[in-house]
């Protein structure tokens, strides 16, 4: 007992000492810094050969002034909406959009609207992205400097009829031991223009399930990119056949017509407790039969003896 107490005291003392020494040498020499960038939510209409005017807003939520640099950057659009900013200016927009050449000082708790005039070259009707990077000028001091920068982009819409084509595949299991079925519709843009698509996930289940409609909001799919849409369905009873129909709709050549991708899958869904319940019933039945047989074995001997 005495040994345990001494050991505990020693361990505690060592832990306190070690944490004090370890924590004492890493120090932040400069505090926090926040930055926000806002762009128009909708694409900016852009006529070929004309000038598209828009603005970006840089917000300084800090209690001190922040100086930032805004520079053009290439963008890489990936699958499922992902965007990465390149390390150099976008040659497509070189000389066509002028970002501020000097650093901008934004006062504390304030913002700067940066107007941009974009000269639109001869482009085919589609959506185009103008990437840029907002970088705060790093604080002096400290051996390791940390920079928080924001990449963003403006979307230009060059109007006109365009060639849109989507393809898709519904990935669903054929059997699920669980309460619901989950899958995904993978949609790929094989056309020559970006597509804003929307859709719905309709589910019915047999027996007795009511029609369920889940609406999918609009989402953008650039040329050659894919996007997964999560789909799910639930049977009404512990055992059922769930029919999932996913419909992806998108504009045709013009916005006065739409095209669609429709995929349907059927899945047998069995709740996990159904096999357990069946197993339990079988066990009970076997036990009952065994008990009955055991009784039968005993009683005939007694009756035979009585008859004798």
């Amino acid at each position, binding site marked *: 007992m005495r040994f345990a107490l001494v050991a505990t005291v020693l361990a505690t003392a060592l832990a306190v000492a070690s944490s004090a020494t370890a924590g004492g040498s890493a120090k932040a020499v400069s505090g*926090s810094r926040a930055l926000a960038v806002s762009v128009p939510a909708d694409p900016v209409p852009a006529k070929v050969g004309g000038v598209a005017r828009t603005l970006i807003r840089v917000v300084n939520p800090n209690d001190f002034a922040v100086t930032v640099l805004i520079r053009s950057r290439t963008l890489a659009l990936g699958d499922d*909406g992902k965007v990465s900013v390149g390390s150099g200016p976008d040659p497509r927009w070189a000389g066509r959009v002028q970002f501020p050449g000097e650093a901008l000082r934004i006062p504390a708790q304030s913002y700067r609207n940066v107007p941009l005039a974009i000269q639109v070259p001869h482009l085919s009707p589609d959506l185009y992205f103008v990437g840029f990077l907002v970088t705060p000028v790093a604080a002096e*001091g400290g051996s390791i400097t940390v920079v928080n920068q924001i990449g*963003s*982009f403006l979307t230009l819409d060059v109007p006109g009829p365009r060639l849109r084509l989507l393809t898709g595949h519904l990935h669903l299991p054929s059997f699920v031991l669980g309460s619901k079925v989950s899958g995904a519709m993978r949609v790929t843009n094989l056309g020559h223009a970006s597509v804003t698509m929307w859709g719905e996930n309709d589910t019915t289940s047999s027996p007795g399930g009511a029609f369920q409609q889940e*609406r999918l909001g609009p989402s953008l799919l650039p040329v050659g990119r894919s996007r997964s849409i999560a789909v799910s369905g639930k049977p009404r009873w512990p055992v059922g056949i769930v029919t999932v129909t996913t419909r992806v*709709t998108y504009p045709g050549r013009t916005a*006065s017509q*739409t095209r669609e991708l429709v995929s349907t899958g059927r899945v047998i869904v069995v709740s996990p407790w159904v096999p357990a319940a069946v197993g339990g019933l079988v066990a009970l039945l076997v036990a009952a039969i065994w008990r009955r047989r055991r009784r039968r074995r005993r009683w005939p001997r007694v009756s035979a003896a009585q008859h004798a």
Partner: protein
Amino acid sequence: MKLRTANRSAMRPRKRLTRLALGAVAIGAALLVLTALPAGAATLSNMSWTVSNNQVSATNTSYSYSFKTTTANTIKTITFAVSGAGLGGAPTITRAYGIGAGTVAIAGQTITYTVTTPVAVPAGIPIYIEFGGLTNSSTAGSYTTVITTKTAAAATIDTGTTPAVALAANNTAVTVNLAKSLTFTVDTTAFELDMDPSLGALADQSATVGLTVQTNANSGYTLAVKDNATGLQSSGTGNPVIAKVSTGKATSVAWPGAPAWGYTVTGTGATVDPAFSGSKYAGYTAGGETIATRSGTTGGSADTISIANRVAIDYSSPSGVYSDTVTYTVTPNYN
């Protein structure tokens, strides 16, 4: 006598079966006749109509209609007959739910949505159609729309009238533009590690940088990190470099001990790259690597991401001041 009785009793079930079969055929035929008959048009339910701008003569207006089917049938066209006069514009299909792809046309006061490949639509299906590019009537007043679903033979399936919408000249049109915004905060913009190889606690140290990200971008954001091409170096002593723990996140490892310079990531809200699971460390790259993502808006609560920067040295590391610049870049995803 016995034989006769036996025959009669054997015949009875046969007669019953014949009667039952005949009855079933008769009921089936009656049902077929009933379903083949043109049913009277039923009334659509849950009808609504909203306009994006209720100023008279407003251009580029959106009309949104929603209703539920009452009768199961194959819908080929849906007509939207707006009362009054003066409806104009070139309608576009902004959204359509509950009905197949189609085309839109306008003739006078009637907008017609034609389904390209009609399929059977059961009863009780909610349908929502939003048209853009319309021009309101120039006459102030109360307007309704008669919505009618029709078969390929132009026979009415269901019909109904929407609640009224008032167009007026003395309304105040309100437009709220909500920008796509992203806020990115770092809690430490510079830090120092005072290290000494003579004591374990001073020879292996970490400094955690806390990041928060908040955005209303529907598809979320991507967070990447990079450092200087030269890494953690000391220019004062002939550029010795404390080696990176790995060449990048693809080769992340459990902390190997001195000498090494690396980082690991944890987070709440964001999806941290699996390379950092199990407290694995990676070396920064000059080209940058994605370390965390989110596929939807953050809503009111910011995501928090912690980057633990770790340096371990021993007596093989030349003394001096080592420095590096770590840059975090957040980009909102496209919707």
